[in-house]
């Protein structure tokens, strides 16, 4: 009898220690995970702060608007900013319709089967193609095969293919988030599949879709490796730098950062790199903010919420 009581006591003491130990491990792990997450935020703050610190002195109206210099100090990034937006616009013009259409097909139409599997596998494969490899493909097709030389349109088409999978994914996710009941209600009223998609599904998804597109636009804006051998590393002189003709070489801002460091001989490389990096970063932040605002307001407008 006494022995039994004693055993129980020991067991209790042991389990109390076990509980303390388990609680300790739990707390430590929790703390560690918190630290990891905070480290990500800290890292981002560090990057933004650092680039801001480096780049702010370089920024001036003159820097943002004047043409780059090849030889002497004092070059700006005006044409590069223009080209970045120009190629971004072209890319979106091509990639959004194709990606949205393919996304709709996969999400709303395709039945499980060989064709859907093929399209999905193609999209996944395309998504992992390194951007430099895509750049070489662009070089082969647009520069060598079609003889377009280095051109804005060649760059834009290369980026179109590069960003198709991401945009398809955004489309599929936006469509997936539309409740199935909307589709059923519409079909039960005698709407066709396309009628349902056009009038109900797309308007409901347009907010999420736009947010996704703008976020990807931010990435297209900063793309570099795929453009070096397709859109080239130079801008035309004078007013020609702001040409609307897509068949001209068009160095973008991100390419300029690399190019200035790697290839140019101007003495103020650091200033140009710092300033350009800051502009790129600000654009990314801007795209993120705009994506959320526009997405929210479109959702409100198209769904009456």
């Amino acid at each position, binding site marked *: 009898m006494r022995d039994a009581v004693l055993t129980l006591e020991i067991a209790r003491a042991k389990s109390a220690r076990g509980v303390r130990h388990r609680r300790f491990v739990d707390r430590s792990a929790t703390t560690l995970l918190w630290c990891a997450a905070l480290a990500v935020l800290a890292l981002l703050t560090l990057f933004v702060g650092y680039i801001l610190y480096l780049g702010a002195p370089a920024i001036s109206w003159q820097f943002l608007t004047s043409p780059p210099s090849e030889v002497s100090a004092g070059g700006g990034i005006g044409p590069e900013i223009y080209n970045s937006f120009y190629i971004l616009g072209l890319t979106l013009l091509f990639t959004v319709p194709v990606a949205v259409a393919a996304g709709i097909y996969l999400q709303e139409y395709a039945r499980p089967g060989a064709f859907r599997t093929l399209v999905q596998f193609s999209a996944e494969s395309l998504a992992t193609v390194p951007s430099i490899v895509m750049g070489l493909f662009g070089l082969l097709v647009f520069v060598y095969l079609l003889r377009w030389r280095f051109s804005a349109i060649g760059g834009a088409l290369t980026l179109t293919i590069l960003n198709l999978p991401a945009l398809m994914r955004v489309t599929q996710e936006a469509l997936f988030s539309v409740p199935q009941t909307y589709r*059923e209600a519409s079909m*039960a009223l005698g*709407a066709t599949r396309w009628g349902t998609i056009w*009038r109900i599904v797309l308007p409901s998804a347009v907010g999420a879709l736009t947010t996704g597109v703008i976020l990807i636009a931010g990435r297209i804006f900063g793309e570099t490796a795929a453009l070096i051998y397709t859109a080239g590393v130079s801008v035309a002189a004078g007013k020609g730098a702001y040409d609307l003709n897509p068949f001209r070489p068009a160095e973008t801002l991100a390419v300029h950062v690399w190019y200035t460091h790697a290839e140019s001989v101007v003495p103020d490389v650091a200033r140009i790199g710092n300033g350009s990096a800051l502009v790129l970063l600000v654009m990314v932040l801007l795209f993120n903010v705009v994506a959320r605002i526009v997405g929210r307001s479109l959702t409100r407008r198209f*769904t009456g919420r």
Partner: protein
Amino acid sequence: MQLIEAQESTGLKMDVRDLNVFYGSFHAIKDANLRVTEQMVTALIGPSGCGKTTFLRALNRMHDLTPGANVTGTVSLDGTNIYDSSVDPVVVRHRVGMVFQRANPFPKSIFENVVYGPKIHGERNRDALLSCAEKSLRRAALWDEVKDRLFRSALDLSGGQQQRLCIARVLAVEPEVILMDEPASALDPIATSKIEDLIGELKKDYTVVIVTHSMQQAARISDITAFFLLGDLIEVGTTSEIFTRPKDRRTEDYITGRYG
């Protein structure tokens, strides 16, 4: 009144023969046969999971939308099998409308919800759409409650109002048959009674097939009742027959409350 008499007194709207529905390898409906009579309310009752809703969705080819669902047998609408390869499911759904268990208004204004059907079927004239909206909302006994806020979001309506809006939306398409899948199950008693009154009104012009989990509701509003159990259609009869003199033992057990 006997079932046969009742059906002969009006007319046969839909005729379901040897209907089987599979979800993948799961056999959800087994050899069901049912005749749906014009201008009457047919209620489908049975315990949860017995296949009532599955059966209902077979009547306007909603299973086309469910990947993996497979339907065999025939469902005739005015003598034409709606599963025939020459038949367009879109036209079927145009003629056989459906109201769902949970109100599912589109995230648009009340007006846009009601005129959605006419719009997709090609009506562009705004006056015509407006008068159609008013007519449908009046028929759904909702007009007085929403006439001042037609262009506000439908999602701001109460649950009961939303469900009547969904009925109005179906009415605007001018279907011949209205399928209702437990339309009042998510509503409070007052809203429920409004819907029930509405169904009573509707059968003057339409053929209604309604799934309900409430035997009282079936007794109150239907003319004909079909009892389902585990994918089998056990028994069909006039509502009074089923509730007073069921032929099958299982029906009786259910009516008297021996199943959940």
